[in-house]
């Protein structure tokens, strides 16, 4: 039985075989470039760090506001991150930040006043958050 080999490298002209080799090398190099570029793009577009940063920053801020000796009001804005891209949730002693439904939520803990627990609505599309503490009770909007 006669074996069938791929004819691509069996051309009688050595130059033609060399051209096939170069073409395949270019194709592999292109595939590697496209794969790496898409990986780098996904890293660049990733908002994991921003979510982690915001949830950490906001939970530290909630702790700071609870640490105040009396009532206070503070308006939180951040010019390093576009806050309106994210939704914020302050529930069960955690500050959760999410970009849109279905994406990964990052949550950081904060210690709340056991005598005046806070559980607010989800805050969306806002460029800043207003923290108010009156008579030990925290309000965020």
């Amino acid at each position, binding site marked *: 039985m006669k074996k069938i*080999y791929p004819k691509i*490298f*069996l051309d*009688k002209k050595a130059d033609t*075989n060399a051209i096939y*080799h170069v073409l395949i090398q270019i194709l*592999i190099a292109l595939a*590697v470039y496209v*794969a*790496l570029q898409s*990986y*780098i793009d996904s*890293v660049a577009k990733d908002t*994991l*760090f921003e979510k*982690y*940063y915001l949830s*950490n920053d906001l939970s*530290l801020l909630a*702790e*700071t506001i*609870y*640490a*105040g*000796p*009396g*009532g206070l009001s503070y308006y939180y804005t951040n010019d390093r991150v576009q806050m309106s891209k994210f939704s914020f949730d302050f529930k*069960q*002693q*955690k500050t959760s930040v999410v970009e849109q439904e279905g994406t990964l939520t990052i949550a950081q*803990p*904060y*210690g*709340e*006043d*056991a*005598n005046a*627990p806070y559980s607010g609505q989800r805050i969306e599309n806002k460029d800043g958050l207003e923290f108010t503490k009156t*008579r*030990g009770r925290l309000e965020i909007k």
Partner: protein
Amino acid sequence: MTDKRGVSNFEMLMWIPRIIFIIFIMFAIIFLVRTYVVTVIDTSAIKANLFSNRIAYSANGISYYDESIKRAYPGIIDPRKFSSADFLDKTIYYGEKNREVGAKIVLKDLNDGKESVLFYNQPFFKEQKKLADSGLTEGPGGSRGYTKKYNVLIMKGNSPEKGELTIDIVVPNS
């Protein structure tokens, strides 16, 4: 080896190490990118500092609290709050299972040298303090210990007396 088919097979075999090398380079680049991309920020020192300030200054900490003006007096400690062992556990709440912070608070009266001790999240503090003292502070599962001292006044009746407040805090690695 002079046979055309033989040469061709040899060249095709030579592709195997090349492809392995390309895969190795790809993984090396991915590893380098992942190494230099920061996704976690270590805020344990800030958390510890903030928590000790909360204990010392807030209304639901150990500060003297004036009910008539609804304000705490930062730097003036109410010694009555040390009489209940779980006073702080009842006021600062991190959830059912608190693995975020633990603290030991020692108030020393500088007049008579008497010390009062209060814990926050005592089981966690005792467990993690050993880790923090052992120097195993790196990586997940480890903890860091912080100590903060304050010169305070102790509210005894109507006359404040000099005292020293020491807060030992353990915070797990983030």
